[in-house]
């Protein structure tokens, strides 16, 4: 009898422990209550008007410094912007931006890990923190700047959407493409612009949509479509890797504005500032004529006070960014100024030559304009 009572007590104790375990995470007790609580919390998460403070100011820089390497989301398929060259090295202006950012943070442009991301997965990779910064010929647009949880820092390349066709097919305008098939890559602003432009012009066409740049251009090369569309820079660079580049012409139409630039996550203003002023440092250095070759001379003997502030001789601009004061010096010494970066990947000596055009300094009729270093 006494044993029976004991076993009943034992059962009660175990049961109460189980219930306590259930109630651990929630105010209510009991297994069933938990299920209810989960359902109830959905609207709370949706409506929560005052969102708790986000990841926080300075968190990204601290994480990057603790890791000792910057992780940069890049393209690996567009020569001149982000490409793995024959030696297995990454090259292109988007890639060089990453190197400049690493130089600003660590004083060492090699402390960067390049992570190729597709057009479709890039924003998720940035949101989830898999990459610290996205530098992958990404167009600045409203939805991306807001709903996709990112901030564009600055424009590194002013682009516009173009259309490439095979030479000798008599296609000179978009209207000639009526009834034709156009290859386009999914998950891009290009896909949306194409639909917009063709609808506005009343031209009927069939899209052939592909997952990445390689398959888009492979299908075009196989003549699956009459034309292929992407940013003009992308067309120029992809044309160089087609079998016979001279057999393809880029139509003289610009279908959209495509400002390309690096993007960071919402919620860390310090990181945003660093990513943004790295671009401005590159542009200002070109404006002041400071190059990787003469940066030491310029630091020893600055031509004007702003150069002195840029290179860290005067003031503490670097410290205000949370970096060392010679951050811009490191960028210029190790990566160069904007012109050097541009010419290395897109200059006249490269197969992917694109004239500077809009991407000249404002002093030379272009759009590149950096705020003062002060």
């Amino acid at each position, binding site marked *: 009898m006494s044993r029976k009572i004991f*076993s009943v007590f034992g059962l009660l104790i175990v049961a109460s422990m189980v219930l306590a375990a259930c109630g651990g995470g929630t105010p209510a007790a009991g297994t069933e209550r938990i299920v209810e609580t989960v359902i109830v919390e959905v609207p709370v998460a949706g409506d929560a008007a005052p969102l708790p403070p986000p990841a926080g100011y300075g968190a990204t820089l601290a994480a990057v410094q603790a890791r000792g390497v910057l992780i940069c989301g890049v393209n690996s398929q567009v020569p001149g912007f982000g490409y793995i060259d024959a030696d297995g090295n990454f090259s292109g202006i988007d890639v060089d931006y990453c190197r400049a950012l690493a130089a600003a943070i660590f004083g060492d442009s090699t402390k960067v890990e390049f992570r190729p991301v597709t057009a479709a997965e890039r924003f998720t990779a940035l949101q989830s923190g898999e990459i610290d910064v996205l530098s992958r010929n990404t167009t600045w647009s409203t939805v991306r700047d807001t709903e996709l949880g990112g901030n564009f820092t600055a424009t590194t390349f002013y682009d516009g959407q173009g259309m490439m066709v095979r030479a000798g097919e008599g296609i000179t305008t978009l209207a000639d493409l009526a009834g034709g098939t156009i290859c386009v890559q*999914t998950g891009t602003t290009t896909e949306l612009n194409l639909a917009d432009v063709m609808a506005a012009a009343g031209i009927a066409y069939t899209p052939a949509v592909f997952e990445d740049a390689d398959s888009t251009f492979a299908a075009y090369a196989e003549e699956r479509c009459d034309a292929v569309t992407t940013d003009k820079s992308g067309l120029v660079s992809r044309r160089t890797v087609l079998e016979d580049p001279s057999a393809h012409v880029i139509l003289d139409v610009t279908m959209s504005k495509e400002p390309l630039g690096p993007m960071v996550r919402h919620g860390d203003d310090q990181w945003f500032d660093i990513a943004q002023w790295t671009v401005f440092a590159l542009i200002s250095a070109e404006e002041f004529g400071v190059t990787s070759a003469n940066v030491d001379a310029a630091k020893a003997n600055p031509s004007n006070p702003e150069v002195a502030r840029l290179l860290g001789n005067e003031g503490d601009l670097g410290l205000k960014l949370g970096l060392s004061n010679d951050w811009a010096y490191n960028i210029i010494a190790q990566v160069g100024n904007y012109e050097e970066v541009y010419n290395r990947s897109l200059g006249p000596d490269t197969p992917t030559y694109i004239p500077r055009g809009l991407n000249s300094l404002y002093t030379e009729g272009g759009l590149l304009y950096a705020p003062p270093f002060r």
Partner: protein
Amino acid sequence: MAQSSSQAASIPIWRDERYLKLIAQIVFAVVVVLTANYLYQNMVNGLRQQGTTLGFTFLGGIAGFDISETLNDFSRTSAYWQAFLAGLYNTLLVSIVGIVLSTILGIILGVARLSINPLVRWLSAAYLEIMRNLSLLVFLIFWYLGVFLKLPRVREAVEWPGQVYLTNRGIVMPWGLPTETMPMYRTILIIGLCLALALGLVLFLRGRQTGKPPLTLLWSTLALILVAVIGWFVVPAAPLSLDLPVIQGLNITGGKTFTPEFMALVSGLVLYTAAFIGEVVRSGIQAVSRGQVEAARAIGLNPFQTLRLVVFPQALQVIIPPLTSQYLNLTKNSSLAIAVGYPDLFYVSNTIMNQSGRAVEMISLVMLTYLTFSLITSVFMNWYNARILLVER
């Protein structure tokens, strides 16, 4: 009995297997619920940190992109949910066409594998072994880049008799375009279908009474065809007008175009899945005992009759469960369409995900949809399986 009850009472609770089992079940359930809750909260917190929240209202927004082939009226200004539907229909189309074709091919292969003709047997065996050991993704890309995109250009199109054109823009064939009498004709067809069903039911019931089953299916089908033919001539104008493909400039206009993407996906899925179905059919046939075949031959059935009347009905019981999983595989594998650019459910959802930035919602929706497809297929096949099991006795 008295002894056993006193024995049960004497076991302390921490050694009583019945309680221990119960407690283990409870603990397991609690762990599952807590883990699920933790994962969910983790996701919600992660989204909150990014400043985004969960919700499906974005599906009403304007899609803004075009889809190359749709079965519904989708255009640039349609909503995201309509784009999702377009993808859903395309997946359904590929799955249904794929299941029908791969079943036919699979049965032929499975039977050929057991043929007494060595050439047929070896060919079939070689095919099955090669296909089953290939990667489906590689195979699909082979069909797309290696076969359908290598067809001649539009200007050099290969023409098959009956104005069928083979080009790298797709396979174009004459097609019927519905005219204004189509709704009327459709009504006639529905009436014909009802008639055929009624006739079938009457014949079936009479067969039960007399014990001599008539050819129910044959007569019903004949009735339907008769109504369809009469209806065609009764309506004032032909309900379908023939639309012939014509090469015009860059493209072929008119007719029905089966795009290279669709062709590559269907060919790849069918040829691949048929190999597995072939093996399923072979194992099912071999599971029927030899005595059954010998008995059937002894009473004078020819080989085809033996197969149709004796072997197949019995083999079906063995075949159906693994066949179901092959059907499920085909449906799920159709999501590889993304590799060849066919706008199926997953592909379109991927585009929506990217343009709207709603990854969690879209992935959940896609998973839920595939789950629903699979469950519906399973339920149907299980019902069919139960039915043929009943017929056995």
